[in-house]
């Protein structure tokens, strides 16, 4: 039995001061010294003879991103109490003590609480020493606290027969403070069984080849309660308004009460696993294979989608069910040859697919569910719906007028309104007016031509539902598939070498930001060379990317709809580690008192094979994720703008005394 108490206290001090620097927001202004123009030579150095009038950015006092300087202190204290107690009892029965029982029962209790406090004051009088008593502005503060507790009881029975048949059964009963009283407790059982068939007397003949073999199967459930404790209460959020009252203070306010479901309870995770472990050739070669199915049931997701006339979002309830099916296989091999060379290798490959069995829209018929909803019922998670790219429009696709410079316009009736578009030479043209505006944004040579999958002569997404998705199709999946890794090593007479590689077989995403979307925003200034050297121009009609357009800070628009050709293919193989080493012989180092001495050279992440056509994006990147932030999107969700993976080379010595 053990009892743990831990207390954490965190104090953060922060302040921002005013800068006195050149303000680069506006144009440079004439550089004047005491009212006289300053002259500089061609290198920018002040000169008294000749030269040109100098300009510089105006030097001013300003703040970086905020309106006033401030000093702030945050403190947070958290207490956790954990009690674990369990007891075990072993029992051996049978003539040869071949029936081995083990019983275990126990409980655990976790309680935690935290409180936090923050004070901020503006108007610093000493920029170099930010303190609360050296400031003259208003005080602002905040504080919060919360607490929770979990209590659980569990019991387990193990049975093994002669090390051949293994059985285990568990049961847990857990309670959490996060749910309403009548739904706090739930029971979670689990079972598993294994059969070491190589220990069977009948299997002795195959042990020369299969030196160890075990089949195993298990099914278990566990509860998840990592949700806020206010899901079943109609909370009115506290905030401050940006409206100032009569004494120039922000008005405090309480928000609209949320719509809630009063019956919220544990989310349940059930895992079914079937596996086999085999070892061959006297344990030299091992193979492990697992197939698993994991269900997350009673997931807390929003309820039926209701129209916006409700005025708020549907309350969350235990409506969701997510299922992942997957398998893993791993091999390992090691062998030492007669001449002293040793080789070892491991290889593993795994894959999983997740399907949403029941999402927020489960009550709607299948045809009406939106294809853009990631958690739509029946949707395979990560599926990307988009248009299928056919090719780029070329000059031959359009009809020109007598001068040969302007394309003839034609009118089509689309969804009841008259639209003006360019006239195509094809016998049965397909119009893409959904993405045009009749003015400047009209498809012309160099823009993308999509495939008309539903054959209605227009490219659109229909109503973007399962039953009517127009020309949309599943063009890829953003879940990483077929993860593999392998390690090969060899050693001989003290020298050793190993290479570790890891990769993903299949992953596609529609990127975000200037590194992934050509034309994302002209104001960004720079674009990757891969875009700049490979877009359609009249003298380069076989380019990969279409005619250059400014999308005005959007990830999709005009030619750049979500489509198959411009999905980023994030499959990769990365040589993560190459390790070379030399270990000195024992007799040499023992004299110096060392038991082991090894020199090594290690290269990390040096080679990456990817399919990104030269884009400066790391294939392991996830848009908007960074280890530096939690709770909000990093860098506006742009792809590839996080810290890149480090390539490093290190060498050194390992000495063991």
């Amino acid at each position, binding site marked *: *039995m053990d009892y743990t108490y831990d207390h954490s206290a965190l104090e953060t001090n922060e302040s921002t001061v005013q800068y006195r620097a050149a*303000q680069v*927001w*506006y*144009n440079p*202004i*004439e*550089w004047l010294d005491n009212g006289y123009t300053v002259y500089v030579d061609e290198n920018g150095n002040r000169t008294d003879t000749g030269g040109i009038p100098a300009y510089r950015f*105006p030097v*001013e006092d300003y703040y970086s991103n*905020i*309106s*006033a300087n401030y000093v702030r202190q945050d403190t947070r204290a958290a207490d956790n109490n954990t*009690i674990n*107690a*369990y*007891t075990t009892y072993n029992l051996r029965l049978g003539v040869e003590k071949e029936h081995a029982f083990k019983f275990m029962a126990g*409980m655990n*209790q976790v309680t935690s609480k935290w409180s936090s406090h923050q004070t901020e004051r503006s*108007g610093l009088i000493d920029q170099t020493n930010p303190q609360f008593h050296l400031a003259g502005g*208003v005080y602002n503060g905040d504080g919060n*606290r919360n607490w929770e*507790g979990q*209590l659980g009881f569990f019991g387990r029975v193990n049975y093994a027969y002669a090390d051949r048949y293994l059985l285990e059964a568990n049961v847990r009963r857990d309670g*959490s*403070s996060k749910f309403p009283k009548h739904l706090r407790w739930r029971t979670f059982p689990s079972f598993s069984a294994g059969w070491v068939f190589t220990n069977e007397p009948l299997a002795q003949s195959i042990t020369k080849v299969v030196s160890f073999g075990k089949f195993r199967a298990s099914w278990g459930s566990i509860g998840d309660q990592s949700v806020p*404790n206010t899901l079943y*209460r*109609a*909370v*009115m*959020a506290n*905030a401050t*308004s940006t*409206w*100032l*009252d*009569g004494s*120039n203070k*922000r008005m405090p306010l*309480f928000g609209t*009460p949320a*719509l809630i479901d009063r019956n919220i309870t544990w989310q349940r995770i059930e895992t079914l696993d079937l596996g086999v472990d085999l070892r061959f050739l006297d344990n030299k070669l091992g193979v492990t294979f697992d197939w698993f199915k994991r269900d997350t049931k009673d997931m807390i997701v929003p309820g*039926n989608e*209701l129209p*916006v*006339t*409700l*005025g*708020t*979002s*549907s309350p969350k309830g235990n409506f969701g069910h997510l299922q992942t099916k997957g398998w893993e296989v791993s091999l390992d091999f090691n062998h030492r040859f007669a001449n002293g060379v040793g080789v070892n290798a491991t290889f593993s490959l795994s894959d999983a697919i997740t399907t949403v069995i029941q999402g927020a829209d489960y009550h709607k018929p299948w045809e*009406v569910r939106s294809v853009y909803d990631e958690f739509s019922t029946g949707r395979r998670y990560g599926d990307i719906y988009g248009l299928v790219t056919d090719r780029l429009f070329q000059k031959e696709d359009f009809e020109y007028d007598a001068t040969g410079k302007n394309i003839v316009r034609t009118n089509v009736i689309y*969804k*009841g*309104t*008259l*639209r003006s578009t360019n006239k195509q030479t094809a016998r049965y043209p397909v119009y893409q007016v959904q993405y045009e505006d009749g*003015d*400047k944004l009209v498809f012309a040579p160099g823009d993308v031509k999509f495939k008309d999958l539903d054959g209605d002569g227009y490219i659109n997404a229909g109503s973007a539902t399962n039953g009517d998705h127009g020309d949309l199709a599943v063009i890829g999946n953003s879940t990483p598939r077929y993860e593999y890794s392998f390690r090969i090593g060899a050693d001989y007479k003290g020298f050793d070498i190993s290479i570790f590689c890891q990769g993903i077989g299949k992953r596609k995403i529609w990127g975000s930001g200037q590194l992934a979307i050509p034309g994302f925003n002209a104001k960004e200034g720079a674009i990757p060379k891969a875009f700049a050297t490979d877009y359609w121009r009249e003298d380069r009609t076989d380019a990969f990317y279409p005619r250059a357009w400014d999308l005005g800070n959007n990830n999709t628009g005009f030619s750049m709809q979500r489509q198959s050709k411009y999905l980023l293919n994030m499959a990769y193989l990365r040589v993560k580690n190459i390790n070379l080493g030399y270990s000195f012989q024992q007799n040499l180092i023992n004299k110096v008192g060392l038991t082991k001495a090894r020199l090594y050279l290690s290269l990390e992440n040096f080679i990456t094979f990817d399919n990104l056509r030269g884009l400066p994006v790391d294939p392991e990147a996830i848009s908007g994720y960074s280890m530096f932030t939690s709770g909000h999107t990093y860098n506006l969700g742009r792809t590839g703008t996080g810290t890149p993976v480090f390539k490093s080379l290190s060498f050194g010595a390992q000495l063991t005394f």
Partner: protein
Amino acid sequence: MKLKIFSFIATCAFACASCNDVLERPSQTTAEDPEYWVNETNVRLYANAFYPNFFPGYGVGYGQTAYTPNGQYNFNDDVVVKGSQPQFSRSVPSSKGSIELTLDWESQFTGPSWNFAWVRKACVMKDRIQQLMGDKLTGEQFRHWLGIARFFHALEYARLVNVFGDVPYYSHEVHRDQLSEIYKDRSPRNEVMDSVFADFRYALQNVKQDDGAQYVNRYVVAAFVSRWALFEGSWQKYHYQNNERAKLCFNLAVEAAQVVINSDRYAIATDFRSLFGSTDLTKAKDCILYRKYDAEQGVTHCVASYCNLNSPTDMGPNLDLIKAFICNDGKDWNSTTMTAAKDFTLDSLIATRDPRFEASFYHKPTENAKSCGLYVTKFIPRSALAYLNLTGGSPAPEFQGDKNVTGYPVMRYAEVLLNWIEAKAELATLGEAAVTQADIDRSINAIRKRPLDAEAIERHVKQTAPMKLDDLNNDPKRDADVSPLLWEIRRERRMEFAFEFSRIIDLRRWKKLNYMDTDANPDLLMGTWVNFPTELPKVLNDKTVGAYRVMNAAGKLVTYNGKNANLMKGFFYPKETIGRLPFLNLPNVNPYLSPIGYNDIKNYAKEGYHLSQTKGWPEGY
């Protein structure tokens, strides 16, 4: 062994005893419905959330800019944009609307999107006060806060009706099992506005006359009622020719405006420019409701920065607006007898036109106003532009970026007066009492007598002569179906509210969107008269060949080709400025009301309910 078992059982027993305490850990720091509604302070705190949404003023920072003057109100016949003019939307969107409590808007209609979150918020307040607080509030408090709740509820519906026409009406909070309520079809406009007017009347009678500084009081309510009742009255008269209903609305507008006028608390006392560029006008007699800003509180905006003459801008006043300004003898520029008024150079315009002209624009043409040559400085105080007199100066930090702290008169007395006189004039055309000279003196002439500030007087600006009913200006360009008095009242409104909320709503309620047809009126695409050789000599040089173009006095377009600088005298008209695509009388396009998304209609149909599309847009898409 026995000790182990014993201690184990003891621990379990101990834990079980405190079982209930351990798991009884509800949130300690959240306010929850319905326990929240216990006293007046709590009701006030709930109502505070409405203020930034309904009274945005200059917005906040760069992010909350909907409903802010200047940059956001460029979709009308006052503004020319360099490049293509913003277009009327001519197709039905796939979906429209959200549930977020944000300052989201439809820019073409300057009103809320298909969003009922604010309606729900107001309904919750109404329901809780009526059901739970009868015994917790005194009679006066009860009536006041119920009035406030009904006021905000009605205000949101008036704005929704402005954008969509018919909207589903909810007077109580809707629960998620009330599917027939949630999925109900749009209520007809007249039915919704009847309920809105009932709410407005209740608020007019029951909201306290004074609830503290910066809080909504009866006069704020009355001013907004006069605005929306006038709007609805014009709409009924000009779109549906329903004169009975129009009279009802105009009478309510007059009644509400009288509440403000008869209170004798307000007057036109501040000069025009200071109304927009001051930091605190809460005590001024002009302001019925004023939004303040403060850098220390972190509440700042960016609207003044766009008027600081340092940032080039793509939009600005067009020639149609410039020509609309009345000359200070009370006549329009065609009928005036002052010869100097026919000269369109900026100095002459400043000296001959209404003082609001000089207050709204910079006194020299500048190439920073890339579409028209005339830079809008209405929303920045005169002191902030003093830096232009120093060489190498730049605007003060508080007039750069989003650090501005000037305040905005969310509702000013001038609007109430103009609403009042326009409602009276419309009633006169419908057979009610005629407008008297006393009425004009109280409203339009009071505004014309607004004091001038020192800098305006230095530039020879004069107050406009008072309007006389027996000597009304007869504009040769007046529409035949608008009486001369109404024409002049509309002109006063246009001058007073240039680049503010009013123009596009006015065009829609008068059924005059044809004023925005750039093919019919070429003045809409031109800017001010610029004499490049004398006023902007440095701008024409080798690098700017082909960049500037004017339409000269003879009506010919002259583009700068490097050599004809002395011919560049005319109305500023860049070659990139292109007119608007046709939007009137197109089948299945209604530029007056917004369509709703066709996916929303389909979703209703799949559930077995019917949602109609806005009239004038194709049903079934």
